[in-house]
């Protein structure tokens, strides 16, 4: 039986290097990550022991040029995210947060000294970053953030708290976004700074193989040299989110593919009423729908990749693909879970783990609703959220 999961053979359009990067990441996920994921999901931990291998491959900041980064194409970054997330959203999140949310702002908005100081060590996985934008009381409206930075000579004094922060608690460096008298600014804050305290959020039902936390800043003093000089508006952190959302649009395709394959494999090998589950019409229609939706999602992701490579991608393009593909992923995961009966609730199979993860993935980096409203604004010219 042929593997139809890349239904229109879109991967044949990838260049040789992109295919090799895809194969390398896919092999790493299957051989090194998959044997660990169920236990880490159960324990609520991320397999930090894999970070050196992740860094050696060049996954961290892979789409950035120079400063120890691999300088791979946007399409290569996309397919790498797809293969990582086919493993688990926690793994893709780790790579996205480090590369797109922490290294990208330094690369894009940082001074030359900041780039040279931080990026090589972050690419090598020696310094782990976290991205502090979301707050306990401000999720979808970051421009009303309560975190303040007050200039004091050549220093800044930071106060406030950030919540739902991937890698808070294990990060060495926080990229903190704060409101100031001069507008929104970004700061590089070492997590061992006086007055900085991070805590892990316990009891999550989603994205369990990923560390999520919160941090508080009580008169944290940061020198002016640790402010990102070229980040001068709320557009700066939003541009980082666009980078990460791009990866999610691909990652969600990986989730859908893994769930589809898991359900197909299960149903082909499980006889009920004397014949395989997959021989029943109701299940074949489900497979046809899953494959169609997954193909739609993949077409969106690959088209987005082409727009990014030609520098014609717009934030609303990314909103459509992130929103659509996350919805496809969670629906596929839930359908796949149901098609595996009681066995589907075990960590032995991936779909329910993926379904739970997607609750977070369709919420963070812009909820499904917010991305709908970004599209609504583009369609009507009227912003519904202001």
């Amino acid at each position, binding site marked *: 039986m042929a593997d139809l999961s890349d239904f229109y053979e879109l991967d044949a359009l990838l260049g040789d290097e992109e295919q090799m990067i895809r194969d390398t990441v896919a092999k790493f996920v299957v051989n090194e990550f998959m044997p660990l994921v169920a236990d880490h999901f159960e324990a609520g931990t991320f397999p930090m022991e894999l970070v050196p*291998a992740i860094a050696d491959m060049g996954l961290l900041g892979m789409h950035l040029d120079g400063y120890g980064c691999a300088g791979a194409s946007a399409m290569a970054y996309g397919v790498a995210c797809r293969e990582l997330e086919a493993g688990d959203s926690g793994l893709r999140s780790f790579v996205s947060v480090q590369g797109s949310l922490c290294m990208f702002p330094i690369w894009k908005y940082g001074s030359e000294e900041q780039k040279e100081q931080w990026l090589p060590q972050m690419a090598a996985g020696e310094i782990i970053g976290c991205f502090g934008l979301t707050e306990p009381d401000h999720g979808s409206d970051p421009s009303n953030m309560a975190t303040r930075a007050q200039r004091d000579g050549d220093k800044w004094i930071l106060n406030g708290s950030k919540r739902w922060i991937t890698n808070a608690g294990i990060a060495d460096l926080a990229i903190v976004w704060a409101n100031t008298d001069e507008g929104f600014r970004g700061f590089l804050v070492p997590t061992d700074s006086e007055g900085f305290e991070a805590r892990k959020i316990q009891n999550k039902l989603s994205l369990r193989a990923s560390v999520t936390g919160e941090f508080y800043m009580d008169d944290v003093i940061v020198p002016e040299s640790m402010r990102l000089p070229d980040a001068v508006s709320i557009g700066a952190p939003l541009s980082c989110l666009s980078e990460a959302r791009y990866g999610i649009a691909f990652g969600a395709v990986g989730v859908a593919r893994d769930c589809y394959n898991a359900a197909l494999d299960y149903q082909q090998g499980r006889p009920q009423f004397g014949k395989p589950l997959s021989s029943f019409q109701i299940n074949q229609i489900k497979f046809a729908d899953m494959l169609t939706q997954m193909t739609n999602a993949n077409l969106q992701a690959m088209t987005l990749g082409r727009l990014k490579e030609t520098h014609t991608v717009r934030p609303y393009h990314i909103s459509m693909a992130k929103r659509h593909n996350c919805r496809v992923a969670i629906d596929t995961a839930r359908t796949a879970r149901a098609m595996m009966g009681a066995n589907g609730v075990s960590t032995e199979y991936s779909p329910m783990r993926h379904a739970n993860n997607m609750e977070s993935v369709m919420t963070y980096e812009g909820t499904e609703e917010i991305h709908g409203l970004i599209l609504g604004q583009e369609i009507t010219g009227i912003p519904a959220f202001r």
Partner: protein
Amino acid sequence: MKVVVCVKQIPDPALPGELDPSTNYLKRDDKLILDESDSYGVEMALQLVESAGGGDVSLVSMAPNGAVGGLRTALAMGAEGAVLVSDAALAGTDALGTAKVLAAAISRMSPDLVLAGVESSDGYTGTVPEMIAGALNIPSITFAKQIQIEGGNVKVQRQTEAGYDDVECPTPALVSVTAGVVEPRYPSFKGIMAAKKKPVEELDLSALGIDSSSVGKNGARQETVQVTDAEERQAGEIIEDDGDAHEKIIEFLGELKVI
């Protein structure tokens, strides 16, 4: 230190393979990939050069159609360059012909050490490495699980059924590397992007001074006369546990001589 690694590019074993009914050879029309059993030789060579503090790892391969996909994987792992012998006349070459061609290519490279996998994952003849050593008139050691270069000698732990033998011989020498004894590295993305720019020298038979009638299907002394399906695996014996199942299992393992 200069190490040459023999690598074979084979059809992806994950895809269903097909035999050409006229030759009984595997069809090789699709994309070829690096034989995984050769990735151990590549890794071993890279480690030897790294621990020697310098040197050069080159690849040598033979393919009838100029395929380089598998070579790029090994180049991405860190090999410096490759020689690919490619000639339409090579189609249907047997193990001895392959060894003659690879030996001719290797002799131009003057290596201190030649590494190869024990056997390929598509043909499984397991004879080519030793025939290359014979053609080059250099010593060979088979089934290496560990290799060290000391002075002008190569010291090898040679895997045996009971454990391993310590053997050594002077260089230049050929050593075949047992699959699974090292962990082949994941190519880095920088390595992948650099691999495209690494030199792959393509040679035909005339460049090697080999008469095309001595290789290929016509020059082959070996012929696959018939192919039959492998016997279907028989159902195993199920032992119901009446309290003595462990004894029956021990007896069974004893018969197999595994305990």
